């Protein structure tokens, strides 16, 4: 079992920590160097965390659990109009990104109104490719409840809803979790109170993702998503020159590869692991709804009978 962790510390000697994590069988997912500071997002084997902690103390850095690491989250706004953007939606997406998640913003075509709101089939499929969907709704209790009754139709991933009133999750139909004190805010979220609300949202999403992890652990994937990422990085040279943000985006039970499906899917399917199996035996390589990218979903152990 791998634990998502975040290390924040000085750039000096941070490579020692990277080496330690890699030697322990963990994965470095992201490395951001900002001037003299470095932020590492990594997956560490749960039993070896004390060792990594000791090392990070030695380097005078800070090691925290970052439950959002390695997940892809869709932040969904009813439309891409002034009513929702740039504030709030971007603030939420940015904040979750700082916590280690990869966020994609989705603006619906006809998501407005409590009676007239709709979700198109394409939007539904696109949102379903993520791990969690965060719906950023407005000010009024009645509207949030009415809208929730039908807007999330067909969405199979956990749904986190935000809005102004303080509601209980049970009161919001079809929602996995609800976070209040948001609403339609047209200024940059920077007051202490607002930042605390964002913290709460990250915490709630972390909890939702932890539940997903528990669910996945019951029937673990045949190959861990970070392993898929590592193999693609080693086997497909073009990924290095790819200019998309996070060319290989980790998800809870797969990865999104930002390369054209038609050209690369066979190459990826035929990647051979040292254990002797090929990618197509342990994962499904599918065309993604996002542009012409590739979506890889790891097969569960119950289906393949083994895990590597």
């Amino acid at each position, binding site marked *: 079992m791998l634990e998502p962790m975040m290390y924040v510390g000085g750039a000096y000697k941070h490579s020692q920590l990277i080496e330690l994590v890699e030697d322990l069988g963990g994965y470095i997912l992201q490395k951001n160097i900002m001037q003299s500071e470095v932020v590492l997002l990594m997956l560490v084997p749960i039993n070896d965390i004390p060792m990594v902690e000791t090392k990070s103390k030695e380097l005078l850095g800070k090691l925290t659990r970052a439950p959002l690491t390695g997940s892809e989250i869709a932040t969904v706004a*009813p*439309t891409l109009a*002034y009513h929702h953007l740039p504030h709030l939606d971007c603030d939420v997406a940015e904040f979750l990104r700082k916590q280690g998640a990869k966020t994609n913003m989705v603006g619906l075509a006809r998501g*407005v*109104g*409590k*009676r007239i709101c709709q979700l198109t089939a394409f939007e539904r499929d696109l949102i379903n490719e993520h791990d969690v969907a965060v719906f950023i709704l407005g000010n009024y*209790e009645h509207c949030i409840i009415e809208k929730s009754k039908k807007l999330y139709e067909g969405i199979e991933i956990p749904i986190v809803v935000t809005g*102004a009133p303080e509601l209980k999750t049970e009161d919001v139909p079809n929602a996995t979790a609800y976070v209040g004190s948001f609403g339609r805010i047209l200024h940059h979220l920077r007051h202490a109170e607002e930042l605390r609300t964002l913290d709460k949202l990250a915490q709630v999403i972390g909890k939702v993702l932890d539940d997903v992890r528990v669910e996945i652990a019951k029937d673990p994937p045949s190959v861990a998503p970070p392993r898929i990422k590592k193999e693609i990085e080693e086997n497909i040279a073009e990924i290095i020159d790819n200019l998309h943000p996070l060319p290989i985006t980790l998800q809870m039970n797969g990865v999104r590869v930002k390369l054209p499906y038609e050209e690369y899917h066979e190459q990826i399917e035929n990647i051979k692991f040292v254990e002797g199996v090929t990618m197509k035996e342990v994962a499904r390589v599918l065309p993604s709804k996002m542009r012409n990218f590739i979506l890889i979903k790891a097969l569960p152990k119950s289906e393949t009978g083994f895990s590597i």
Partner: protein
Amino acid sequence: MEQLETFIVECPDVTGAKTTRSLILDTLSDLSLSRVIERLKVYMDPVEPVFIFAALLRLGSPSIKIKDFAKVDMGALGKDEVKIEVEKEMFTIKLLNKLWAKYGKENIEQPDRKVIIVKTDPIKDLDMLRELVVEEPQQEVLDRLIDAIALRIIPEGFRVRKHELSTTHVLFVASEDTLKPEWLAKGQEILESLRREENA
């Protein structure tokens, strides 16, 4: 002059009213409109659903014409030109832009900081140029106001709308469903109450 002498948001949903209030304040300050609105009353009922926005306005100065800040005369004798002598340089840039758009850059000369020569028939264009509107502060403010109310404040789903707009007041009634006559009447009533307050 106080900013926003009356500012009431009426809504059965208390949290909703509070957030609506803050979003109106944010929008008005974003578009620097807080000095334009004198009294403002919003009625919102998400269950019906209806959104009424009524405000009394305090618009700035009326439109500015060339004759208000410059002397417009015939140019040199025997030439087809009009001479504009600018007295307040503040408007020169806007004036030049207007003239360039109208006559083309090749027909406008500026031999001196405060002198602009327009190559055109003075007999035909002199009076027209005197009356040419260079700046319309009121219209600009109204444009911004419409942007604020229609595109930012009224909930997006409320697409059925009726509005009244003049230089002294603005009234928007919006809903997701067909507008009911009683909502329109309520809008008028709110506007009247604002007027009564002002006259009191």
